[in-house]
């Protein structure tokens, strides 16, 4: 009896980390399966990913909230983000099943992928700085091992060295910023740090700490001027890993920004409202607005001149990062819901575009846009899916990208301060249509050298179907997903305000 009772309390104790534990156990088993067969290892990881999604969905459905030793928590916000990373994991595994870019070490590949996903999931669940740092580094170190996995291509090794150096620098900056932050707050609990960040007077030490923290995490979401590594790494890495970095690792960087800075603006607004003053705009909000405007402009303008499709998608993902950064300058819960929704739709549209690139690479097509000429004749369904993803990225209704951009931009119009930012973003969307339409033109209008039909492998078909259906369904009927995002951002911001009201500070 007591054994059963012990088991029950152990399960209750570990429940907040259930999705993480499933993936960690997978990572321990998969290398053994990989010795036998690469395909079996892939299917095992896919099964584990789907099982983890089911567990997380059930926990979300029952409204479970939990806390693990004050290090990690599980609530609506972390559940949604864990779900997002698990979907990315399953998508990447699906793309890797018939991937021709990887020749051996299949078991290790899936194990490292699972551990990297665990790192990202730990970042969104972290409640204090040590667990945040460990999660970040887990994802980082694993991702530069993954980038180097295309053994027969020297570009992959070059990309891995570049990624290693930039991410090492970003880690060092981030850790230095954190150490100074510890110096004047005397705590490593994130909520306490946010409060003292918001109420601190701006001194030189504060400026150094905040600058190094922003610079350290800006590498991960490739803000201007920390974006130079992105196109090289995205081009050199195996395409599934490019997907992983573009739609997964980038979201992790945004979560770090949400955790550290978004709540800080919420505190500033809350305190000025409590004192009966007009809500003032924090100086850092201006910094983020300028960074957002610069990031989307540079990303979109440089993307125009790209001929390699992976490089073009890399610059477009820099630009999409600029759009999501609008959330940090606006800092309301509606804009955060828009940001989360854009993150989710970005997974499907950008992920889908990379699935197309990988599927065609598996059939021997090159990465240049010229190689896509006449694709509509050769593989009509793949070309149609690619068109959907391109138009969704450009923000054309009724696709998912339109709705999420609409929510994001309309949240910035409220209040009136950030109308110029919205104007910049809308002009940028128009610019971006040019290079997305160029791909569509190459596929549908231009004549290719051959009209020979070909089929893509089944696993890519499934991944494409999932992404295309998600892009269409979220575009036409965004209600349920939007509701989840609103719930998550409400939980996130109001949960913090509840904590603030009950804390000794106010």
């Amino acid at each position, binding site marked *: 009896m007591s054994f059963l009772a012990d088991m029950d309390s152990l399960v209750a104790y570990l429940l907040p980390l259930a999705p993480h534990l499933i993936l960690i156990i997978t990572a321990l088993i998969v290398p053994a399966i990989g010795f036998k067969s690469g395909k079996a290892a892939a299917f095992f990881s896919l099964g584990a990913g789907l099982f983890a999604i089911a567990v997380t969905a059930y926990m979300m459905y029952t409204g479970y909230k939990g806390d693990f030793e004050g290090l990690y928590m599980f609530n609506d916000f972390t559940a949604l983000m864990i779900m997002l990373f698990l979907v990315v994991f399953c998508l990447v595994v699906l793309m890797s099943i018939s991937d021709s870019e990887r020749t051996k070490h299949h078991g290790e590949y899936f194990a490292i992928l699972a551990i990297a996903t665990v790192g990202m999931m730990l970042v969104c669940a972290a409640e204090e700085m040590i667990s945040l740092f460990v999660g970040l580094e887990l994802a980082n170190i694993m991702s530069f091992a993954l980038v*180097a996995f295309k053994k027969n291509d020297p570009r992959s090794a070059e990309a891995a060295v*570049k990624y290693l*150096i930039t991410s090492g620098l970003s880690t060092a900056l981030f850790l230095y910023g954190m*150490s100074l932050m510890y110096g004047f707050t005397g705590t490593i609990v994130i909520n306490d740090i946010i409060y003292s960040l918001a109420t601190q007077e701006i001194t030189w030490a504060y400026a150094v700490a905040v600058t190094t923290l922003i610079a350290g995490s800006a590498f991960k979401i490739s803000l201007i001027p920390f974006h130079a590594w992105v196109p090289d790494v995205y081009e050199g890495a195996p395409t599934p890993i490019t997907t992983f970095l573009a739609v997964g690792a980038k979201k992790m960087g945004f979560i770090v920004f949400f955790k550290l800075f978004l709540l800080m603006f919420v505190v500033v607004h809350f305190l000025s409202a409590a004192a009966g003053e007009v809500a003032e705009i924090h100086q850092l909000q201006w910094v983020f607005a300028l960074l957002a405007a610069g990031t989307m402009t540079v990303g979109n303008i440089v993307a125009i001149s790209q001929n390699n499709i992976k490089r073009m998608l890399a610059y477009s993902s820099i630009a999409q990062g600029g759009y999501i950064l609008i959330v940090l300058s606006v800092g309301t819960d509606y804009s955060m819901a828009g940001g989360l929704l854009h993150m989710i739709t970005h997974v499907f549209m950008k992920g889908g575009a990379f699935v197309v690139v990988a599927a065609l690479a598996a059939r021997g097509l090159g990465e240049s846009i010229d190689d896509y000429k006449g694709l509509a004749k050769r593989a009509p369904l793949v070309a149609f899916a690619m068109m959907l993803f391109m138009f969704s990225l450009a923000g054309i209704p009724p696709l998912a990208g339109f709705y999420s951009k609409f929510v994001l931009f309309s949240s910035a119009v409220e209040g009136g301060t950030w109308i110029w930012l919205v104007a910049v973003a809308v002009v940028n969307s128009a610019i971006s249509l040019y290079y997305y339409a160029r791909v569509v033109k190459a596929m549908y209008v231009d004549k290719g050298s051959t009209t020979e039909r070909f089929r893509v492998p089944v696993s890519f078909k499934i991944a494409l179907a999932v992404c295309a259906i998600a892009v269409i369904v979220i575009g036409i009927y965004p209600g349920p997903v939007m509701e989840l995002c609103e719930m998550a951002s409400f939980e996130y911001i109001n949960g913090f305000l509840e904590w603030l009201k009950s804390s000794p500070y106010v």
Partner: protein
Amino acid sequence: MIPIELFLLMSAVLFSIGLVGLLVRSNSIVILMCIEIMLNAANLNFIAFASHVGAPLAQIFVITSITVAAAEVGVGIAILLHAYKSKKTTDINDLTSMRW
């Protein structure tokens, strides 16, 4: 008792040495060492603050970050070796097959 300002100054100097080395040197092994120096500057900060306020929590952070740095160097050296095998160089100025 050594005043805390000296520790902070020391760590700022270390951090700057690492940063300048990373920007100036072109040997990728040296760059990896510069990153380590910068991480150690941050660790020194943590230890100085922890002993100043007498709280042990930051020392846990330092032990964690040393472990993380060891893992990073392990994977990092493996990648540099891999790059050396395919390019026959450790000079990052030769890694220029992808531009714009």
